[in-house]
């Protein structure tokens, strides 16, 4: 069962036929006013059909190209480039990794250096050597020099004999 509004819309669109049309027109209280409204509605429909039709662009390709250029430009402003965006994401991580590795290397270097237990230094294979020696003749004309090494004790001695003896005050600090 159609409502009055549905029948009215169908009547305006000339969709009612036969008995249904006759019954509906008979039910109208003011036939002349309804006909006038129908005509106005049709007139409005024609007007809307004419005015609301999408206009075709004369330079569609040009506008499309311009639009794409503008979009790409806006994208570049938002993020420097696609590669740059990747860099901005990964760069702090890479820097962190570098800093971490460098810090670890520094820590290990310092720790090894500082915490190593000093091995007791192995005695050098060399003994101290005396290449030459001379005495001042004024302090003992007969003074002599003897050089010897105590290999067991690893001590090298320059032994002088005949130097002038000095009084005990020469032992002062």
């Amino acid at each position: 069962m159609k409502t009055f509004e549905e029948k009215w819309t169908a009547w305006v669109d000339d969709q009612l036929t036969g008995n249904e049309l006759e019954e509906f027109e008979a039910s109208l209280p003011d036939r002349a006013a309804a006909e006038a409204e129908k005509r106005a509605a049709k007139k409005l429909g024609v007007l809307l059909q004419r005015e609301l039709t999408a206009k075709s662009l004369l330079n569609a390709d040009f506008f499309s190209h311009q639009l794409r250029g503008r979009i790409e430009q806006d994208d570049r402003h938002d993020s420097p480039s696609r590669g740059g965006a990747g860099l901005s994401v990964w760069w702090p991580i890479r820097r962190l990794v570098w800093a971490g590795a460098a810090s670890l290397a520094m820590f290990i270097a310092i720790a090894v250096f500082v915490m190593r237990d000093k091995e007791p230094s192995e005695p050098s294979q060399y003994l101290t050597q005396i290449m030459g020696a001379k005495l001042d003749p004024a302090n003992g004309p007969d003074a002599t020099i003897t050089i010897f090494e105590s290999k067991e004790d690893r001590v090298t001695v320059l032994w002088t004999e005949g130097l002038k003896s000095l009084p005990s005050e020469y032992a002062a600090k």
Partner: protein
Amino acid sequence: MLHRVLPWSAALALILGAASADAAHLVWSGLVIAQNNENPKPPPAELASYEQTLKDLFGYNQFEVIGQSRKTLATGQEDWLATSKYFALRVDARGADDAGYDLNLQLYQEKELLVETNTKLSQSSPLVIKGPQVGGGQLLLVLLIDDEQKSTEAKRYHSHHSNNKFQSAWHRFARMFRSRK
């Protein structure tokens, strides 16, 4: 990349430099009066490990330092003096190699040169020069590389002050920087 690597490399070089500086040797030079005493005083720490050798060699039981000097040899080109009231030992380092430091030694009695010698002072091998008789004793000149003394002191220090490895590491680290000032 290069300008990020450079500062780290420089820092590492500094650390390694500090480590190599630690490898420098400390040379102790002393003017020692050896004499016999009924109650002999203990020898100085530098001579403690050679006391018996000195006793055997020279026949005295007391070794007293009347003048001394400690010099850290970094380049092997340093010179220094150890002096007492009447004596002065001048040491002139003239280079170094694996066998030791080339040293020129001059013993002065006031302004008179008594003895001059060229020697190659080796690690763990002290040089002893018998000088003139002084009163009832004998003047001795002793030169030695004092690393052993350094490590003995360090061990004593550590055993007395801390068994904590981190604490001792910190002490060593701090000492390293103090010695570089």
